[in-house]
């Protein structure tokens, strides 16, 4: 009551742009509300939100690091830069991040990085599993399972991982010890882990999408895709929806709560080879057997850009700062700002001699792109790929053992339930526009449908039973 009113509008355009990031929706129009008490309450709430947004934008000054960049001078092109030229011009720390692991005997490699970008897990097709801290070079374990390994994935941190082997999915400790055999998940081709829900999603040759809760061990749901065997899957990090790419060129979006896909999009004329979704959940890139590389706006389900790759791409990855990495034949191309504007040429190119690319992934919080190929695992530097400032409470690359344990407990307490997964993650706590009578009516209808479905099932069962027991003489028949 005696304080001066804070200035509403931010004059500085850079600050205003930063504020828009923290806005989280439009302000509530409280001036039209008739009730004085409610209007006052909303006004005070809006003022608090405005203060919070302004403070968050101003706090960006405290962020220590700045993003990397690669700019061409004069007539030079950025895609002509090779990694060996690059390593001479950057500092030692960065040039050490360019490495090649020569492992020709064990087939094409799948790779995975942990969420803090610190640990790398590699799985060779003939059954070679290994994990190491790629920055310090410390090996966690190396094991041969002597079986086909189709995909590997870290679970919530670097202590557990899952490997999709020939018949089932196995969960291992970071010392290589086998802990669980998930025999429900059969013939799995692709694994994905939802970190905030503790759900391991698997899709395989049988065309089933299965969700397993790795904290309680419960199989949450098994969904029949009815679209044949599937070998392409990506998660949308913004809303935890699974994107599956099918052989008829469709991409379907799944949540564990519905037995049919939420959305089905016709993307390509042939097989969908690779999928990637950006961290803000706005853009999806798909690559098809027809050589097309399309960029889609996921919120509106329309195609934004169309590129092509000389050979069908085998893997796609989108970095935290919106760089698109494409792995095709023996090449890795990185496209910058490829979503909103049509680019004529890629940002960077890399050729892995005589070794086809299997799996690429941008390392979180680092300017590095790692990829597994037919003859091993390599890593290249892509300036401007990673988010420069990490948040210790979200993912900490410098985590100590005690911090890791604490984070595990806190994230388990905050674990989201699978029934919260929906296309719009902000729906929690929102008011529904339906009136009370409508809600009651819809609930009644659903109940009736369930009951009629149950009744139909029972009738069918009874009919089958009667047919089978036609020739059996039973007590009550004799009496009749």
């Amino acid at each position, binding site marked *: 009551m005696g304080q001066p009113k804070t200035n509403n509008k931010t004059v500085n355009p850079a600050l205003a742009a930063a504020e828009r990031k923290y806005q989280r929706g439009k302000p509530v129009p409280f001036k039209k509300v008739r009730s004085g008490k409610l209007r006052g309450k909303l006004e005070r709430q809006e003022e608090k939100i405005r203060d919070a947004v302004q403070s968050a934008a101003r706090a960006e000054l405290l962020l220590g690091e700045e993003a990397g960049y690669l700019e061409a001078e004069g007539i030079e092109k950025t895609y002509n830069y090779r990694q060996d030229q690059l390593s001479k011009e*950057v500092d030692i720390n960065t040039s050490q991040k360019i490495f090649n692991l020569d492992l020709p005997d064990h087939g094409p490699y799948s790779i995975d990085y942990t969420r803090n970008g610190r640990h790398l897990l590699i799985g060779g097709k003939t059954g070679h599993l290994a994990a190491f801290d790629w920055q310090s070079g410390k090996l966690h374990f190396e094991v041969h399972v002597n079986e086909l390994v189709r995909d590997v994935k870290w679970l919530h941190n670097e202590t557990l991982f899952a490997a999709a082997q020939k018949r089932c999915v196995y969960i291992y400790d970071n010392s290589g010890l086998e802990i669980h055999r998930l025999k429900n998940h059969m013939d799995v081709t692709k694994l994905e882990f939802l970190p905030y829900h503790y759900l391991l999603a698997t899709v395989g040759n049988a065309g089933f999408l299965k969700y397993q809760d790795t904290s309680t061990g419960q199989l949450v749901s098994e969904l029949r895709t009815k679209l044949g065997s599937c070998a392409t899957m990506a998660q949308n990090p913004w809303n935890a929806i699974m994107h599956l790419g099918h052989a008829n060129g469709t991409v379907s979006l799944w949540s564990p709560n519905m037995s049919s896909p939420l959305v089905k999009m016709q993307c390509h004329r042939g097989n969908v080879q690779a999928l990637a979704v950006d*961290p803000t959940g706005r853009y999806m890139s798909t690559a098809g057997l027809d050589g097309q590389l399309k960029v889609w706006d996921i919120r509106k389900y329309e195609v934004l850009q169309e590129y092509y790759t000389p050979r069908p791409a085998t893997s796609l990855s989108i970095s935290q700062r919106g760089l698109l990495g494409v792995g095709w034949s023996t090449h890795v191309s990185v496209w910058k700002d490829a979503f909103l504007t049509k680019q004529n040429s890629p940002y960077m190119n890399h050729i892995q001699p005589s070794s086809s690319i299997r799996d690429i992934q941008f390392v979180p919080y*680092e300017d590095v792109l790692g990829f597994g190929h037919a003859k091993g695992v390599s890593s290249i530097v892509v*300036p401007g790929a990673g988010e420069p400032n990490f948040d210790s409470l979200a993912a900490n690359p410098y985590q100590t053992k005690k911090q890791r344990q604490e984070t595990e407990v806190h994230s388990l307490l905050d674990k989201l339930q699978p029934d919260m997964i929906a296309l719009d993650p902000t729906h929690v*706590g929102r008011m529904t526009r339906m009136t009370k009578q409508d809600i009651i009516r819809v609930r009644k209808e659903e109940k009736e449908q369930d009951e009629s479905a149950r009744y139909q099932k029972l009738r069918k069962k009874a009919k089958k039973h009667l047919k089978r027991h036609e020739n059996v003489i039973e007590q009550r028949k004799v009496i009749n």
Partner: protein
Amino acid sequence: KIKALSRSSNDYVRERSQDLHKVQRNLNPTIHPFEQGREYVRALNTVKLERMFAKPFVGALGGHIDGVYSMAKHPTRLASMISGSGDGEIRVWDITDQRTTWRANAHNGIVQGVCAGANDTTRFLSCSQDKTVKIWDTSSGSDPVNTYVGKYAFMGLSHHRKDPLFATAGNSVDVWDESRSEPIHEFEWGADSYQSVKFNPVETNILASTGTDRTIVLYDLRTSQPISKVVMTMRTNAIAWNPIEAYTFVAANEDHNTYLFDMRNMESAHNVFKDHVSAVMDVDFAPTGQEIVTGSYDRTLRLYNINQGHSRDVYHTKRMQRIFSVQFSMDSKFVLSGSDDGNIRLWKANASEKLGVKDWRERHHLAYAASLKERFKHMDEIRKIDRHRPLPGDIRRADRMKKTLLGSEKRKDENRRKHSKKYDEEKRIPERKKAIIGVAK
């Protein structure tokens, strides 16, 4: 031109093992997805933990043989409390040790009222049905310092905040000076007897009394005249003045409700506190002026927030019979209830609060958890868990019966309104005015 992201571990790893770990923060929402979902899960966990830790009963002060019918707290000492019982005994308690520090067989009848003397004194007063008011001093043994004999039985007692004046309620409302043996003022306005009387602690000349004719009368000592009176549908059992605002008071009524009045305009109550299933016997304000505690004949104690109409918590025990007096402690953390069975029970005002000193991190987390609960309190799952209180069977039944009866009355009223033109023209009476018949000046 080229620059690649390269972090030096000096900036991110602590130097010595005695140092704190370095924490980096980036508030970009992209790094923190599922905000609403995670906060909802945290709110759910908070509400569940609150129910788990809700153990409000602290202890029982036993010693009285008959029921405890009046209680008073010391205005400046936190741990001191006076109680008067049905066999005429008065005890002074130390709440922290939960034992009696002083006792006397004060009266021949029920001790109807006790109150503390003026500030900074060791004196307190008691009045009883044996037509006497006695002043006691804990340091001078078990004989009263002074006795005042009246013409009729006294039902209520209240002392002025600063001056050596006190008021009694019986056949009439009398104001006494401590140095005179006869009352200096005798107020009467219609009722044949007065139930209780209370001095306003802020506006110290104002006095309120409740009468058997269902009225609440306000008096002013400066003009020596009553100011105004409000007539209600049922009798008020007790009154408590707001210690922060000079002009608001709550009235505990026989019709199971408690009403918040503004002295300046008593045509309509400011708030109606519902939830009890029997007559509300006593009410007290918290020293913050934001909460009230009510004790009722239905053997339960309820805590209300001054802005809300329904109780935020309810305390009951099998051993606690009809509650006749309640007090809020002066640090607003505890609540005392004196009941028919002769025990005074000490309860926590916030049932799941951890007592004792909390360090700043804990306080910050509790504040965050409370604001999350506030944000999601309308969600089904959270509301159900938060509202869940185990209650004795007969209170549940009485509550259900009451709801059915009131619901049917309301439904019939609405039907009459829908189908009768004349009825429709009459305006609906707001709930805050329903129990008030009129105001007289």
